[in-house]
């Protein structure tokens, strides 16, 4: 029954035009960033590294597909949650708003199975979106800019050998899928609570923006609150680009996200079981 429901949900999801907006946005943004880097990336890098070039001579190729993929990952992972919420926030609330939730739930399918199928649809959608970004930025980057060492500047500047980059990128994308699954679960929860299709999308966006703003302010109160914001752990993909590399920190960040997913999904199930669909 679950697989049938999942199949139906996927057909419904991909028959809607709005489901493709996010993919269109990813194609446009990834394409535009690559094109811009291909045209003007050398000047951009020269300008950005001018201080460093006062002290060092550069030998080799810094601008390459790995750098562009990393830049895209950093830029898009802040905004992809909005694209995900746009679709996953509508999965239950859309049915409520249009009244079709009643037709669905009077059929011989358990509420929990239907919710699980819709939740799986949300996760599949967010996974596909991250995968499309990963494939597009990797292949377009390698094709336009070639392969090379990856140069990451955070608290320290770390250079990863080209042979050491692919597995880190794979890990980062896999972790990003978990991060986006957390966003999908949150918007899915709001989708269950409200009967309006717009509210879950807005609520998800507001929470993510608020958490991100509070995390970026260096006040002790916000610093103390930071471990309780799931957005803190969504940045865990960057741990794949740290030296020394720490599996335990990745497990800690990944565990925190997984816990959020389980809690959001559990609460959604609990709520839908008790939801009055007659009013």
């Amino acid at each position: 029954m679950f697989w049938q429901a999942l199949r139906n949900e996927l057909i419904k999801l991909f028959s809607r035009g709005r489901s493709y907006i996010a993919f269109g946005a990813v194609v446009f943004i990834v394409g535009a960033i690559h094109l811009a880097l291909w045209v003007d990336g050398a000047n951009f890098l020269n300008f950005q590294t001018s201080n460093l070039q006062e002290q060092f001579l550069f030998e080799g190729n810094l601008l390459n597909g790995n750098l562009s993929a990393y830049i895209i990952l950093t830029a898009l992972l802040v905004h992809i949650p909005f694209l995900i919420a746009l679709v996953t926030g509508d999965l239950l609330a859309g049915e409520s708003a249009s009244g079709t939730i009643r037709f669905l739930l009077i059929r011989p399918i358990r509420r929990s199975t239907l919710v699980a199928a819709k939740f799986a649809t949300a996760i599949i959608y967010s996974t596909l979106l991250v995968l499309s970004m990963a494939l597009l930025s990797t292949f377009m980057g390698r094709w336009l800019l070639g392969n090379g060492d990856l140069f990451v500047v955070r608290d320290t500047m770390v250079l990863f050998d080209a042979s050491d980059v692919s597995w880190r990128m794979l890990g980062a994308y896999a972790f990003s899928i978990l991060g986006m699954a957390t966003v999908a679960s949150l918007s899915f929860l709001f989708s269950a609570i409200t009967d309006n299709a717009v509210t879950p999308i807005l609520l998800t966006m507001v929470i993510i923006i608020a958490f991100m703003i509070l995390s970026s302010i260096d006040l002790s109160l916000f610093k103390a609150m930071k471990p309780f914001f799931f957005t803190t752990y969504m940045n865990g993909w960057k741990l794949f680009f740290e030296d020394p590399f720490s599996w335990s920190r990745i497990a800690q960040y990944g565990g925190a996200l997984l816990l959020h997913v389980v809690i959001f999904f559990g609460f959604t199930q609990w709520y839908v079981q008790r939801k009055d669909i007659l009013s």
Partner: protein
Amino acid sequence: MVRSAKRHFIVIGLCLGSLLAQAQSFEPKPMLDSLQRRINLVNDYQADVRIKLDVSFIRIPVRRAQVFYKRPDKMRLKAKGFALLPKRGMQFSLGNLLAKPYTAIWVRNEQFQGQPCAVVKVIPLDDNPEVLMATLFINRKAQRLCKAEGNTSAGGAFSIRFGYPDAPNPFDLPGTLEFTFDVNKMALPMGITGDFDSERPSAKQKGPQRATLQLLYSNYLVNKGIPESVFREEATQTH
């Protein structure tokens, strides 16, 4: 009689003092000429080189490269992947420094890393020298350069230590070069990858930090001829 003996004693003392002073100082020019003659034995060379950078806020794996040199001043480094090289001191060439008119002053003798060295200051006399002044630590026994410190006209100081392999080394080419220089953490291109949430350097880290870069040479091929095309390629680039 006693007065005459005293006078003789003072004269002998002065003569001995003068002789001792002359024995301690010496004319550095012959030693530098000998160094230059050895340098001039090398018309060109190529070698494999490993590049190790040690600075607290930059982590780069050991890079492998090939270095090509052709007299008088052609140098090309081809790295496998991306490498950072020190800007100050990388262009230093003792051969070039000694090929032009200069004044050399012996400063002192000093033990440097267990080697008996003469410390010599070399001041170029041409109008626009690249190196304004160099302090050379020259092994007096082996007649080879152990350390060079200097100030460039571009305004930077550099320090290079030279290490030599134990194996027979007819051209006295170094096995290791160790550059020491200051790097400011503020030079890091923060945000180049869009990581604006990364931690900014603390006030302590803002000051210059000591960096060491080692070039470890192996597989020298000396005077085998290197085509000009090797040097025509762009030597340093960001893309």
